[in-house]
């Protein structure tokens, strides 16, 4: 019994090392889901991101049916990759508004000219304030907001063919 107790600290130490070693090998949390799903969109009012277009306010997300809100930026590479799929969803009749994070009007205009413009309203979030208010941690991300202005879905990362179906499904469910 005494001998066993002598070995106990070493056993605990080895156990600790094993836990740490396995913990270090686990990849860090890759995505961060917004906790606001099921809650109303926080109040915000963003100016127009492109001259001659309407900006985006939380009031615009209420009473106009479910809609997608795409968080993007002209400096974001995965946003280029998802652009054709947003165009596909637009073609399927899904309304999409956008929030451009930390971006300049001329850069956004160039981005939309090169990669297509699937958006109705585009708000300029120059200091990420609205992005943070929504619980979003990067670009691109896409929210689905229902007719009552309640956040129903949050997709993190770019949109590919598989995500189009997921988003369309979530959009239909939000009706």
């Amino acid at each position, binding site marked *: 019994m005494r001998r066993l107790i002598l070995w106990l600290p070493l056993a605990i130490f080895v156990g600790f090392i094993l836990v740490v070693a396995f913990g270090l090998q686990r990849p*860090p*949390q890759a995505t*961060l889901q*917004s*906790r*606001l799903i099921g809650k109303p969109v926080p109040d915000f009012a963003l100016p127009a991101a492109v001259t001659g277009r309407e900006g985006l306010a939380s009031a615009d997300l209420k009473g106009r049916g479910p809609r997608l809100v795409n968080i993007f*930026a002209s*400096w*974001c*590479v995965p946003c280029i990759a998802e652009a054709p799929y947003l165009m596909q969803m637009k073609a399927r009749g899904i309304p999409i508004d956008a929030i451009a*994070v*930390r*971006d*300049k009007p001329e850069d956004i205009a160039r981005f939309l000219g090169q990669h297509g413009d699937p958006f109705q309203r585009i708000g300029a979030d*120059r*200091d*990420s*304030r609205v*992005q*943070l*208010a*929504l*619980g979003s*941690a*990067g670009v691109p991300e896409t929210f689905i907001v229902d007719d009552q202005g309640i956040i129903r879905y949050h997709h993190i990362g770019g949109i590919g063919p598989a995500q189009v179906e997921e988003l369309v499904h979530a959009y239909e469910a939000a009706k």
Partner: protein
Amino acid sequence: MRSAPIVAVLLLRATPLVAQSDLPPAPYADTQIADPAKEAEAKALMETLRCLVCQGQSIADSDADMAGDMRALVRSRIAAGESADEVRAWLVERYGEWVSYEPPVSPLTWPLWAAPLALVILGLFLARGRFKRRRR
């Protein structure tokens, strides 16, 4: 020393994992609040908030655009009279406890808080046994 050129080439090839915008940082990102007491409160809070895109760093330590925007958010809210706890709660409401480096006492985390206390008590108990034996 021979590896220096190789390292230099590797550094040249290195590209940032997350693309950054070329907008200047938000006003409060790298500027202190005029009131030193409020700046101290904001600084203490920033050191215990996790940068969302760098994950292993606090927003006080990170150079990422988003960390700058989070510092600006913290400073402007503190400057507007909110308490550090309120700002932390606002972020936790959106990102979960994960965003905070200060673990609260909850059913999940109480062993974390209790463990040091339990170990000290155990240590005292063991030490007591040894001293007793020596006196004999």
